[in-house]
């Protein structure tokens, strides 16, 4: 679905990606994690054709995204973090744009709008930021495109909407589609994103499925901090410990702990997953 090879990108003197390679497959919901400024949004923008790589290649479904061919655009939907809707009625927005997407489903849009409790007969400008975001997410999922890129989709959503979001995204995922979600709010999307991609300055630190992560790392609670822990975090009544999995018993991956463990032990994590 997405094939990035030796990609380099910089904003004038600020280097963002140096020779990164990444492959994303259909049928998965990728979680794109990373600290502020590592290039999560930039990567999504390169994948959607909004930015042009300085060198290297990014190929999506055989297309070069920056060519912005209609055939590519009708199979892609990108929702930016701070989506600003135009000054038109939401239903008109969906009707006028939906005709450009061959698999657009009007009924699905109406259903999702009802699920999200957003009034489709209001103008975007009359809706709150969270409601605008829900409306565009409803539209994005109704287009049934093969690649959906969501930049911080849970930002601005209230608690019930976050659980709705998890539900609708998991329902939208099919064997042919690939969803990439960039987020800081990993707890909002836990149990949804798999595989996990963790970006570091200029590079990809980790791109692994939850299954592989739980094979290689163990996540446990302990009364005392472990000496050989990759990461240890004090919690109520003990410690959350991330260690190498030496017992072959799989544990539930705590994405937040994983993220911190990866950031602290970059080299070791690379060795663990590269030696598989």
């Amino acid at each position, binding site marked *: 679905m997405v094939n990035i090879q030796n990609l380099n990108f910089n904003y004038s003197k600020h280097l963002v990606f140096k020779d990164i390679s990444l492959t994303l497959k259909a049928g998965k919901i990728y979680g794109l994690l990373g600290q502020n400024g590592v290039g999560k949004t930039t990567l999504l*923008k390169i994948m*959607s*054709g*909004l*930015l*042009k790589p300085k060198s290297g290649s990014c190929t999506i479904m055989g297309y070069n995204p920056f060519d*912005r*061919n*209609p*055939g590519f*655009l*009708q199979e*892609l*939907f*990108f929702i*930016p973090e*701070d*989506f*600003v809707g*135009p000054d*038109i009625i939401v239903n*008109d927005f969906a009707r*006028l*744009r939906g*005709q*450009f*997407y061959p698999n657009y489903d009007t009924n699905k849009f109406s259903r999702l709008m009802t699920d999200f409790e957003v009034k489709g007969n209001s103008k975007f400008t009359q809706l709150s930021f969270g409601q605008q975001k829900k409306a565009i997410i409803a539209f994005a999922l109704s287009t049934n495109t093969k690649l959906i890129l969501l930049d911080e989709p849970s930002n601005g959503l209230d608690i019930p909407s976050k659980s709705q979001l998890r539900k609708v995204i998991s329902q939208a995922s099919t064997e042919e589609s690939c969803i990439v979600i960039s987020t800081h709010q990993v707890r909002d999307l836990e149990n949804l994103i798999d595989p996990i991609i963790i970006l570091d300055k200029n590079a990809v630190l980790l791109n692994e499925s939850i299954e592989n992560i739980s094979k290689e790392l163990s996540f446990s609670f302990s009364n005392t901090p472990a000496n050989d822990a990759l990461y240890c975090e004090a919690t109520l009544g003990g410690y959350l410990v991330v260690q190498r999995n030496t017992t072959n018993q799989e544990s539930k991956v705590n994405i937040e702990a994983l993220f911190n463990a990866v950031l602290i032990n970059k080299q070791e994590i690379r060795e663990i997953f590269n030696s598989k």
Partner: protein
Amino acid sequence: MNEIFSSNRFFKLLKKELAERVPMIIKMAGTFSLILVGYWVSILIFDGGASSATSRATYVFIATFITMVIAPFNLYKSYNHPKKGIDYVLLPASVTEKYLSMLINTVIILPLVTFCAILFTDTIISTLSPSSFSGYAINSVLNTQRILESIADALIFQQGCIFGNFLFKKNKVSKTIMSGAALYLVLALIVVFFLTVVARDQFINIDTTNTHIVIGQNSLSQLGKLGSADGLGSAIKALYYLAMTTFYVFMPIGFLTGTFYKMKTQQY
């Protein structure tokens, strides 16, 4: 699938663009028509004299020209906006289709609607109140030669504005005006340099001939009559033709090509 141009997709796009921009188009056409109504009401209130059809026809041209100039900034101001522009650039249509649709809306539809709306308003008022609005502006406006010359000049100016709208991300109007002024200043300096240094002798000779040059007040295209003037040296004639070609051919092509290039390569 045709990735460059599909008529089906293009008409869908045009329909979408029109549907979204109709309120703005009506607002602009309505504003200029209301100004004419206001003018008529002021004549009635202050008991002013009758307004001639020619002066109102001039207003029609000025209003249409203003509409042409502000159309790109009004209808497509957010195309290269880092956030608002994303929605449009990722719409599944080719750059060619988006470009043509943008040109149709800014060059034809908005100015034409404004032009017709003002003329319609003028015709109604002239019929209702012939003592205030003498004659019909439509009769003066429909002078084909004048229309063609005015449209040609306005179109070139508008192409520059369309390009400016895509070239600049912030303060588009002021930057476009300043860049336009700078461009004309540079061209004027080149012409002056040519006349006073390169073809100085021929330029001085003009003084000694009985050539009388009058540039019409209606249109820059009246400069075309200069080419047939007697007594002008070949260098000056060449400069004149070069200037005219630059103004009427190179600049519009440059603006149109530049706009297309910016649309195609804009990064967000």
